[in-house]
Each structure stands twice: as C-alpha cells, then as structure tokens.
C-alpha cells in the first residue's frame, strides 16, 4: 500500500469541507450532519463508520444530490473534481450519477425491481448514458456480471431478483452501479444482512474494484468489515465526524472514546469473557472475568436434548428438501450452546423444533428427560414456561396494539402474581434489561432496535425460564448495540442461572458468547465441540471456510501488507 504522501499528490475526486445537512420539519429545522469533511483521492477507499442514525447515509446522499426534497444542504466546499455540487441543476445530476459516481443502495433485497430480470435492470443502467446496440449491450451485461463474480452469468441474467440469493442480488446491484464504469463508487452497507461467506464474496468483488483503480466510499456500521479495504476511516457519531485518519492509525491508535468503544464492541476470540460495551453491568457485584469462570464451573446435567431430528419439505417439483437431517444435540445446564451456519442451513428450524413451534418428521425432543412434544397442547404448556424464545425481529413478535407494559403484563399474569404487584414486576423486569419506567407505556413502534430487543428479552425472562433460545437475536443490530445486548445476555445468564441456545450466522458473536458450538450445513450438524477447539482447530472443511471468511481487525495490517 502506498504511503499517505504519495496519495495526497493524486487527483482529488471528492472534496467536501464543512458540509451541513438538515431537514425542514414541522417543528422547524432539524440538523442531521454537522461540519462533515471528506477528501477522496483517486484510487483511494474511504470508509464511513458509525451506528444507525449517525448521519453517515445522509452525508453521502448529499454528495449525490439525493439528500431529499426537504433537505437543506450547505457547505464551504462541495466539489466533485472541478465541479461544485452546490449549484448543480437536476438535469446535470444525471450526467454525474451513474457515469461519474456509481451508487450501491443500502438494501439489495429491495433495491432491485422484483418484476425485472437482472438483465433488464443492468441494461437500463447502461442505456441511460451509453449508446450501445443490442449485441454490445448484451455483451456488456455479461461482462459486468462476470466482473462482480456472478457464476453462470448467461443463466443468471434472465432470473428475477426473487430467484437470486442475497449475495447474488447484492452483486447484481453492484453491477448496475458499475455499468458505466464510474471512477467513484459509493456503497452503503454493502454487506449488512449477508452471511459471513457471502459477505466475504462481496468484499472480494469490492477488493477487485479497488485493484482496478476505482475509488470507493464505503459506509458501514461494522469496523471489521471495512478495515481490510479502507485507506482512510471516518468515524461518525450524532452527525459529526469524531475521528478520521489512516486505517492503521484509527484501528491501532484510536483517539476518540467512541472509536475505542466501536473497536471494543467487535465480538470474537479476543473478547471472550470480557464486556463489549461500556454500559454498566446490571449485576451489582460483577467481575469482568465472570463469564470465563462461569463457563468452566457451572455446567451441569443435560437439560434439553434433541435426538435424530428430521424435517423434510417438498419442493414445488415434488423433490424432497431436507431442512434437517439426523440432528442430535444436548444442552447442559448453565452452558451457552452456539448453533452457527449460513442461512438455509437449518439452524433456525432446529431452534423452532426445540421450542415446539414446528413439528419434526421424526426424532424426539426431551426436556429433563421427558419427551415433551409428543404431548397435547395443555401438557406442553407446562414446559413452555421453561423454554423461552427471543426472535430475530423483535418488533414483529409484539402485538402492534400493545404497549410494552401490556406485553410484559400479559406474560406475568400467565405465571401467577397478583394484579397489584404487576406494575412493580413490569418495572423490575424493565430495569433488569436496562430500560426504565418511561419505556413501560411506549409502543414498540417508538422504540429503537436495541430497545425492542431488550423488551423481547424482558418478556422471555418474565416466564422465569431455565432455557433461553435466541434465534439471530443480535443479527439486525448495529455492532455497538449488539455489544450492549450481548453483555446483557451474559449478565442475565449469571443472574438467572440460564442455559442458552444461541443461533447465529455470525461467527464472531458465537465465538464471543458460546461455550460449545454446533456447525450446521445443509441441514446437518457437520461439527460439534467446545468453542475454543472449533475456532482454533476446525476439522471440517466447511468450518474452516467459515472461519477463514471472518473479517478480523487483527488481520488487517497483515492482509493489507500482502
């Protein structure tokens, strides 16, 4: 990698100084981005990192003239090459967007037109500016798809977004941004919501672009994702850039406390047994090494067991598809069992069968040695209170008509307790998960993602469970919020003596929290063992692949040097 000195001699593509963006609302002017500075040199990659709501998307949309109709954009300097973007007319933007600046929108799953085959989507992007005949265009489409690493482009180009996996959709979206070969690409959260393997593939595509000389502005909430690509990192919080500098500088010598918190929040091998967030523990007598000691001493007898579970679905053409094939597992008292795998590996189905929400075709689930799913609805209810669940998307797991207090009351009333004490119980529960009285009468719609997940955890705790099953419970959260929730879980496990099944596609999270790990692939458990063993000496090729794909901060310097 070239040094900063040589970079500064290159052409400046984007020059932004003191950019302010605000929105006109009914309550007056609402500033969102303050004094944003950015300089993008040719061939350089700048990453903007921050949690949701930090203004990173708004700031970059202003660079594209897409801040919105009610947005007020002003800046000392806002230039693309020699052209000031402050005075660009709507018509002139067309010449810039696509041809000069490619934009990869945030959500690949909804950013492609579901009624158009990929070929048309990319063809449209080509058509807007380039004058190509039919054959040339066809040729370009295939080249673009090949360039972003879509296998079998001849077949894929005729498919609709709904027929493509998340990773392929993201790559198709990048292909549309690349269509006119712009010198700059802005990619907003290009790997969020993707599995680690797929994420790695998308990062490879971006890496290839950088190699070809494209300049990149990357937006992400996850430092570890951008670390291996970026030359410069800007850290944003509450609409301000709190730290900026060369990647090595920011990662290894962070100055601002928020940057330090972000780095600290990334879960993985090095974080086992320590807290990820700076939030105070909800436990009064908490020691930092408590998780490490708990995992080795507390584990007791088998609490929940699954024996040779099998679940099959029929594809539309009648072909059987195995969601789960001969899966057996044991959860011991006091342990955290991580189930890891890509989407479609059957890990969520296993969790649902354990909870009795999906019936297995064959096999048995035993709770404390009793086969509980073969019983009728009434008898099952006795066990229900022992196994509680936290969904991936907490918002959809709440009745939209209910306030937080009613959601919790609903469960409390189920497991005894007089009416009088209920309000106190609700407040006590909220306190346990780090919320307070003010949240009790709010509707879930007004809560943030992290707060909703806390309410979901409070609800699960309200039944006073022995086992907590978390299905991708932190996957939709920002790294910084995820850190708080993971810390909370470790606290609660200690406080309530919980056994936890933690389903996730994120190996870092699993490595951080799990004592024992199951690796699933195509409905089968391919590897099982203690977390340390699995991560240090993976035996199965698939596990090795997963671990190799994991973005890691400590590897950054090494990878970049290579």
């Amino acid at each position, binding site marked *: 990698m070239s040094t900063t000195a040589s970079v500064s001699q290159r052409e400046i593509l984007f020059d932004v100084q003191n950019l302010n963006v605000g929105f006109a609302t009914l309550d007056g002017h609402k500033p969102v981005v303050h004094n944003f500075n950015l300089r993008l040199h040719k061939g350089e990659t700048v990453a903007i990192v921050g*949690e949701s*709501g930090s203004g990173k998307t708004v700031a970059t949309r202003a660079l594209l003239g897409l801040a919105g109709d009610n947005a007020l954009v002003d800046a000392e300097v806002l230039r693309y090459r020699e052209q000031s973007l402050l005075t660009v007319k709507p018509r002139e933007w067309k010449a810039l967007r696509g041809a000069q600046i490619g934009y990869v929108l945030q959500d690949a799953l909804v950013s492609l037109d579901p009624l158009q085959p990929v070929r048309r989507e990319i063809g449209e992007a080509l058509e807007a500016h380039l004058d190509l005949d039919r054959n040339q265009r066809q040729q370009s489409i295939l080249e673009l798809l090949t360039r972003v690493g879509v296998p079998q482009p001849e077949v894929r180009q005729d498919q609709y977004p709904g027929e493509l996996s998340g990773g392929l959709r993201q790559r198709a979206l990048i292909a549309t941004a690349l269509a006119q070969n712009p010198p700059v690409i802005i990619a907003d959260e290009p790997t969020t919501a993707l599995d680690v393997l797929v994420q790695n593939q998308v990062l490879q595509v971006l890496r290839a672009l950088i190699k070809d000389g494209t300049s990149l502005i990357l937006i992400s909430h996850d430092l570890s994702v951008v670390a291996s690509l970026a030359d410069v990192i800007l850290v944003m919080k509450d609409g301000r850039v709190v730290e900026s500098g060369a990647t090595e500088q920011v990662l290894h010598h962070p100055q601002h406390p928020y940057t330090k918190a972000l780095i600290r929040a990334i879960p993985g091998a090095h974080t086992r047994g320590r807290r990820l*967030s700076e*939030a105070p523990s909800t436990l009064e007598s908490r020691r930092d090494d408590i998780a490490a000691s708990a995992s080795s001493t507390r584990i007791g007898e088998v609490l929940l067991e699954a024996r040779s579970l099998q679940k099959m679905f029929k594809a539309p053409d009648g072909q059987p598809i195995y969601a789960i094939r001969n899966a057996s597992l044991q959860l011991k008292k006091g342990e955290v069992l991580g189930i890891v795998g890509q989407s479609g590996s059957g890990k969520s189905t296993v969790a649902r069968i354990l*909870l*009795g*929400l999906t019936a297995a075709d064959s096999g048995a689930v035993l709770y404390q040695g009793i086969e509980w799913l073969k019983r009728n*609805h*009434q008898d099952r*209810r*006795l066990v*229900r*209170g022992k*196994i*509680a*669940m936290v*969904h991936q*998307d907490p918002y*959809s*797991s*709440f*009745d*939209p*008509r209910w*306030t937080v207090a009613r959601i919790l009351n*609903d*469960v409390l009333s*189920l497991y005894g307790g007089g009416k009088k004490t209920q309000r106190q119980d609700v407040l006590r529960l909220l306190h346990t998960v*780090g*919320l*307070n*009285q*003010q*949240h009790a*009468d*709010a*509707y879930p*719609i*007004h*809560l*943030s993602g*992290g*707060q909703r997940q806390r309410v979901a955890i409070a*609800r699960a705790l309200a*039944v006073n469970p022995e086992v907590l099953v978390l299905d991708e419970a932190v996957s939709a959260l920002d790294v910084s*919020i995820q850190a*708080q929730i993971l810390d909370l879980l470790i606290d609660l496990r200690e406080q309530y003596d919980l056994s936890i099944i933690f389903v996730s596609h994120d190996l870092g999270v699993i490595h951080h929290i799990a004592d024992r790990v199951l690796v699933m692939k195509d409905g089968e458990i391919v590897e099982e063992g203690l977390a340390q063993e699995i991560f240090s000496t993976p035996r199965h090729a698939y596990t090795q692949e997963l671990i190799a794909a994991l973005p890691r901060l400590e590897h950054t310097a090494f990878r970049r040097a290579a």
Partner: protein
Amino acid sequence: MATPLLDGHSGLVLGATQKPSSWRLLREARRLPLLVWLSAAVIFFTAWASIAPGTLARHSPLETDLLNTLGPLSADHWLGTDEIGRDLYSRLVFGARESFLIGILAMIIAIVLAVPLGFLASLPPPFARAAVDRIIEILLSFPTLLVALLFVTILGQSPFNVAVAVGIGAAPGYARLVRGQSLLVRSSAYVEAAIALGHTRARVLFQHIIPNSIRPLIPVTGLGIGKAIVWSSSLSYLGLGVKPPSSEWGALLAAGKVQLLEAPSLIVIPGTAVVLVALSFSTLFSYIQARSEGAKT
C-alpha cells in the same frame, strides 16, 4: 403522542409516559390534525340532523312550491329547490336519519356476517377452509347489488330491509378481507411468541388473532357506510329502495338522475353529502386505529 426516542442504553427520553387522563385527552384534542376535526364535525352534524332535523331546517321536506321549481341557491332555499319546489336543504337534513341508519346498520350486518365467515375460512382443517372459501367465492361472484336486490324482493321494501339487503350483499367482500388477515395474523411472529410463552389457544385467539384480524376492517367500514348509502340509492333508482316521499339520500340521488341535465345540483349535492360522510367515517376510523397502536398520523 409519543416523541421519537433517543437510542442508547440509558438516559432515555420518552413522550408517552402516563395513561391518558380526560384532561390530557382534552389537551391532546387541540393537537388533532385538521382533517380529523373536519371529519368529526361532518359526522356530528349528520348525527344531529338524524336526531333532531327540525332544529336545523326551516322548511318541511314535503312542502311544495310549484311557483319555484328547480330554484337556484338562495337565502331562503340554501341549496335550491327540486322539481316540485321542495327545499333541497331541508330534504337533505330530514333524509339524514334514514341514510345514516341504513349506512350504519348495513355495515353492522355486513361485519356481523363477515367476521365469523372469514374466520371459518381461515380455520386449519383444509376441508373446512376449502368449503367456506368456495361459498365466499360463489357469493362474491354475484354483484353486491344483485344480492341486495334479491333480498329486498324477498323481505319487502322498507329502510330496515334495504339495510339488511345491502349488508348481506356487502358481507362476502369483508369476509374475504377477514380471512386473508386472519391467515396472516395466525402465522405472525407475535402469535408464535404467545404460543411459545405458554398461553392457551383460546387466549391467543381472543387476545391476538381476532382483534388483529378485524383491525383492517375499521377504516374500510368507514367507506362502506358511504357505499351502502349509494347502493340503497341504486335500489331506489330501480324502484326497490326507500319509497319516494322519503328524502333518504339514496332516494334523492335516484330522483335527481331524472333532472340530471336541467338541474345537476339535485344530484351533485346529495352525492357530495354521501361522499363527505363516507370519507369522514373513514378518516376518523383510520385515525382512531392508528392512535390505538400508538402510531403517529
């Protein structure tokens, strides 16, 4: 009205804190959107006209004035006069009661029929579901008006029977809506969560599935009230609705059609009244529904 929250793990700011007291409701009423105010006003005046039409109108709805037929809007006749010189404004006011009752009653009948039918169609056993589904589809394949015609012919002509007939005619469409919503709610994560928490089936059904399945009906029934009035006017047009001396709005619309070219106001004005009432119910119901979920409008 909750204000947006600040994220974070501590020190949170929240608007919705206490249960609304009546004083609080009054204070909040001042912040209601203008449209909701207007809707409430329209419904209030229609209701007033239904209860005590004499206090709002100066003329009798039946008083004819053959020297002033199809008269223009004037100080004496605010909305003009009809083909035999009856005051249109007074007719509108005196017709409100029947129209209002036909609209509301027809909707109540439609909902009472549609909700159980829709739920039956969403029941788990496939044969039951298929059977009720087919029945709804057969009913849907008849135009609402045709079904209403059939029933009004069987039951006889009276405002009540018109309401029953229109209600029966409208029911299959709403049943379909309830069915779809019920299937959606059944497979929702919050129903799953309730089951996983160990609630009884009955409780899940009454606490979650039924209220949430009926929810989308609320704004739709607002519009339905207006539609019912229009259908009753179609019946009047065919001579099967509320009988002529009555100034039920549907009857006014039907009568106005005859004078469409000479005096379009005879059809435009009652038509506007129907649409206003329908939109007002719809707006108000949507608002109430949104508020009950804590959503901002």
